[in-house]
């Protein structure tokens, strides 16, 4: 049994410790907002927050989140910065196919929690680890800047 906080609520799962958190979320708990992309921590589609820091859920073993705070896309809007990022995403009509956008938003929130006034270079660096096959990078960049203004 592995216990942790999931989106602010206690959660216990009966899975082998080496089960990736992405599998726990999607298969065990039915939270499918976090996406499977590359499966090797390279694309960022599966980004979640563990104790506020972003992690690639596809390579994060369930045993490593025991006793920790796990936040997923399903609850990121309950956070002030998360809400601001989601609102900005809508204003800028960022999404095209949408598959990578859960990870993009989780990465953007992680950036703005660490750096509330990111420069263009900060945004480019921080968001460079999340790939978008539709090429929505320009809109992502604009939305992050706009969200930063909203939380200033």
């Amino acid at each position, binding site marked *: 049994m592995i216990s942790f906080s999931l989106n602010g609520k206690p959660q216990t799962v009966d899975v082998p410790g080496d089960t990736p958190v992405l599998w726990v979320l999607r298969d065990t708990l039915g939270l499918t907002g976090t996406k499977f992309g590359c499966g090797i921590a390279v694309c960022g589609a599966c980004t979640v927050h563990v104790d506020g820091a972003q992690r*690639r859920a596809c390579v994060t073993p369930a045993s*490593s989140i025991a006793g920790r705070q796990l936040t997923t896309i399903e609850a990121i809007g309950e956070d002030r910065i998360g809400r601001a990022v989601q609102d900005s995403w809508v204003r800028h009509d960022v999404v095209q196919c949408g598959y990578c956008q859960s990870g993009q938003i989780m990465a953007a929130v992680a950036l703005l929690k660490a750096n509330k006034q990111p420069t263009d270079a900060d945004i480019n660096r921080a968001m460079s680890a999340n790939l978008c096959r539709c090429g929505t990078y320009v809109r992502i960049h604009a939305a992050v800047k706009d969200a930063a203004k909203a939380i200033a």
Partner: protein
Amino acid sequence: MSSRAEALRRYLACALALPMAALAADPVGQFQPTQVSVSPDRSAGLQAFAQIERVLLHPRCVNCHVPDGPLQGDAKRMHYPAVQRGVDGKGVAPLNCATCHSTQNSPLAHAPPGLDTGGQPGWRMPSAKMKMSWFGLSGSALCKVFRDPGTNGGRSLAMLQQHMATDHLVAWGWHPGPGRELPPLAKPEFDEQVRIWIRNGAPCDRSKS
């Protein structure tokens, strides 16, 4: 006291000190530091360091022993994404090493390698305070940076040897996962060359750089 004399004093003080802290940190209690011989063979020591150098400059080691952000891969390419060292060597939020480097290597090629430290992701590079950069160095210049506690993380010879022999991030270099070249010496052979180097006074070649 001149800076050179001060550096020598610090080196000797560390080299001669009992490595109690290092021994206490050894989880299996099997590490025994090599003592410097009463009649060191300088030539044998220099030959041993030449072998050690081959490992230190291998991508598995030098990719993180760099002046700035890390490199990656056998070709020592720029790291993707463009992460930064950070104060503690674990990256700068929101892109920390642990964002992508989890607790174990993936069985698939091209995946970020992983390292387990107490059940948590343990990937890191040297801290900003002590970068321990070897990039661009070779021969006696590398040897001196490697040996001097002022540039090697504050390690005595015993602590340096223990780091090479028992540190799990060092050991990862010989278990790098698929698609990554192994260092040019096997781990036992590397450890033996470190012992030979230290037994013979841990010499650095004065005539070459």
